[in-house]
Structure formats: structure tokens, C-alpha cells
């Protein structure tokens, strides 16, 4: 699956770097490098609801605090 994190200015200010770092760590910790492709993109045109993250084209609104839950519920549970 492909996870894309918005790294445009607005999402960056709301913590997209922390989300990227958490996801990078979690993917590595769970040995999912082959199954989960992380990517960044500048702006998803939905700045008000940032940080915007898409998982195979489905849009989610995350914060650094909700990233672990997102990983557990949307990535880990589906990939295994």
C-alpha cells in the first residue's frame, strides 16, 4: 500500500514531519518496508483539515498524536 503525507507549508506547520518520522519508525519496526511505501507531496488542496495523509487514495486527517492509532488501525491491521 502507498501512504502519502502532505508536506506543504500548512501541514508542515501542523506536524507533518513528526508524522513522517513516526511512520518511518513504525514501518521499520514492523518490518513492513516491502509492503508499505511512504511518500510525500506538496499540498493536497485540503489545508484546513491537515495534516492530510492518503492511504491508497483515501484521505485521512492526522496529527502527530493520532498517527500511532492510524498506523495500527489502517495499516497494520490491513497489511497482515
Amino acid at each position, binding site marked *: 500500500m502507498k501512504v502519502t*503525507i502532505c508536506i506543504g*507549508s500548512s501541514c508542515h*506547520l501542523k506536524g507533518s514531519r513528526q508524522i513522517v518520522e513516526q511512520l518511518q519508525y513504525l514501518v521499520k519496526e514492523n518490518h513492513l518496508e516491502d509492503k508499505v511505501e*511512504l511518500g*510525500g*507531496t*506538496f499540498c493536497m488542496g485540503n489545508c484546513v483539515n491537515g495534516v492530510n495523509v492518503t492511504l491508497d487514495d483515501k484521505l485521512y486527517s492526522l496529527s502527530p498524536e493520532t498517527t500511532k492509532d492510524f498506523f495500527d488501525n489502517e495499516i497494520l491491521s490491513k497489511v497482515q
Partner: protein
Amino acid sequence: MATKPIKDRKFDTQVQYLKYKVLREVARYAFEDRLMDAYTEIPKLIVKEKPTMRCCIYKERAIVGERIRMALGGDKENPNVIEVIDIACDECPMSGYNVSDACRGCIAHRCEDACRVGAITFDEHLHAHIDKSKCVECGQCAKVCPYSAIVNQKRPCENACKIKAISMDENGAASIDNETCISCGACVYQCPFGAIVDKSFILDVVDLIKKSNHNEDYKLYAVVAPSISSQFSYAKLGQVITGIQELGFFHVVEAALGADMVAYAEAAELAEKGFLTSSCCPAFVDYIEKQYPQLKEHISHNLSPAATIAKYIKETTPGAKVVFIGPCTAKKMEFQKEKVRPYIDSVITFEELQALFDSRDIDLKSLEEGVLDNASYYGRIFARSGGLADAVKQALKEQGLDQSFELKAISCDGIEACRMALLKASKNVLPANFIEGMACIGGCIGGAGCLTHGDKNKADVDKYGREAMEKTISDAIGMLQK
């Protein structure tokens, strides 16, 4: 006309203002699909019933016609982006050393004694005259005159061009040697008649905006140089960002993030190779390639910050188009290079951005403030001389390379300072292992495409740097997928 308060002043000179008016109208006509009428209507819009600059309205309108031609992209046969408008060139006297009215007709006649070629004669009032058939332009007479009555008359364009790419053609107009010119734009900014102009790509940008179909068919990105923090001082930076989006750009990204990426990679390259020159300034790179080809192998292999971030955008957003907006005329050469062309679709200057805003009647001061925050402090200070070297030093530290490699950087701003360093490097006598080369005085903030140039610009850039959320280069580039 009353002088506007400095904070509301959009340009340094009336020449820039004139150029801007033409660009603004050409952009307006392009947006409205009326370019067919540009040549017949715009000259009359700008030059009304009475001449204000030249001998008659016909010449003024003819020159405006030439400015329209430059706004439309200039001479396609000429590879250089800097061109002379010959009918606008005032063919300034360039007689070299001359005796001015300040000559008192004194009796000491130091000038005569100082002249080794016997070129000084005196009239019946004891006033000095220089025999041009003998004079060798050594300047000794000017040095010894107690009244400073002997002056060196040099053309402003030739004076601005420290690499001597400008001479006089057979008709007396300025002529640019493309083999020497590095497209830095110093002459463009200095010519008091606006006779040397950088070609514009605003039509391409208008086209990119229109064809994006409101960013439905492709996403159009603006990559802005960090020197933007010293520009548009009548509005807030956030309002400028919103203005760019109002023009039709999908999103604005800092070239400074590309600078963070470059600093990180350049530090590693430097530590590995032991000696390097920067590759950020396209005029500096061009100068090395033309004048010091033996040093070419030492130019950093990194793309410029603008090209680096544009490449990243294109790799992560399929179909995206990128326009670089900055202070630089040489960038208009760089983006046409084979290795940059895939990443940057067009380049405009801050001058041209102002023209685009006004062609759409976008009043920056009335806009909401957008946000711009991608880069670190270090990426942002690339805009001023010394910033690049500071960033490379930091990047060495962040990668733990400062233990094994000692950075000895020399920061050169202005092409003369660059030349001195390169000359020494070519003779292996430069006491440094890294040359930061910027062709413009002060760095990019001194660029010819800036709206305004001032003492405060460096402080503006530093302030903008400190406002960055990310404090280290590693953090700024940490979120980019490798």
C-alpha cells in the same frame, strides 16, 4: 510628483517602473487573449500625448514596442537572455578621461607633470585639455588634480560589467559579447536608459496558468527564492504567497528547502573531494566554465537549490509543472540547460511577479496571509552572502564530518571577488577549500530581478531565517523520502 514613502515604493528606479508597466500590460493582454493588439495599443497606453523621456512620442512608442518584444520573449535567435535595445541606448559618451568645467586654470599644472605621454595642453585661460590621440587613459592626471577636475567618463553598462562583456558597436550602441556574458543582469539594473533588458518568459507562465485549467489538468507549483523575504516590503510575505495562489498557482514551495538538500549533499561531497566551489549561482558557474575551465571539475555536482526542489516536486507529483520565481536573470539561462530543463518549466523575476499581480489587479495588501514554511534557517539564509558557507558548515556538523574535515570557506559576493578567489585557486594559492561564489553584490538579495535593493535586505533575510520552524538542516530534509 510627490515621492512615495519608502515602504510603499515598489521599485528603485523609474527605468524599472517603465519596464514593469510594459510587462504588466503584456501580461494583461495575454490573460485576456488580446495579444494581437499589444503592439498597436500598449505603446499608446504608456506614452500619452507628450514625450516625457525622449525627443518625441514616436521614439518613445518605438522603444515601448521594443520593450513589448522583450516582454514577449525577445530575439529567439539570440541564446542570451540579456539583450540590448539599440534604439533605447543613449550612446553615452565614453570618452574616458576628460577635463571638466571644474578646471580652474591653475598655475601649478600638476596634470601636465603627471602625464608621461605629453597629452595635456593648455588654452589661453590656462585650462587643461587632453589630446585623445596621445592619451593612454592611465588616470594619473585625474589623481593629482587638486580640484578633482579630471573625470573618467565610462558608460554605466560597461562600468557595471566587471567581466568586460560590453563594448561599443560600430554605431556607438552597447553590444554584449555572448561568449563572455554570464547573464548576471548587472548592466540591466545599471543602465540609466533601460536599454539593456532581460528577456521575459511571462507569456509562458501565463500559458502554464491557463492550461492548468485551475490546476485540474496539472498542478502548477511556484518555487520561490528566499530573497523574497526582502521584497514586496509594502505587504506581508504571507500575502505575497496568497497572491501567487490567486494568480492560479496550486502551491508555493521554498527554494530554500532545495538549499537545505544542497547544503547537506554538498558538505558530504566537499569532505570527500577536499576542494569545491558552490554551484548555486548560475552566473558564477557560467563564469567558471567560460573563464576558468580548468576549475570546472571542482564545481559541486549538485543541481542548484531551485532545480533540486523542482526535481523533488516532479518526482513526487506526477505531471506537476514548476515555475521558479526569484531575483535572478541568470536563472533564465540555467533553466534552459539540458540537465535542468526537465525540472523547471519557466523562470520569472520578482519584477515580473509584480507585473503579473497587477495585470490581474491583485492587491496584496487586501489579501489574507498564507503560510510558507518548508525550509530551515540555513536553507533560507542562502539568499545573502555567507549563508551558503554557514549552511555547509552546519551540514558538515550534522553529519559528523566536522571531526575529520576542517572547512575553510571563502564567501565571495560580486563577480570581482569571485574572480580573485578563482584566480588564486587556479594557481593553487587560495587559503581555502570551499568557494561560495555569488555573482551579485550581497548575494541573491542584490539580484537584478529584485524590485528593490537596500541595506535592510540582509536583516530581512536573517529574520526570515530565524522564523523557520525547522532549526536544523537534517530536520528540514528529514520528511523528504529518499
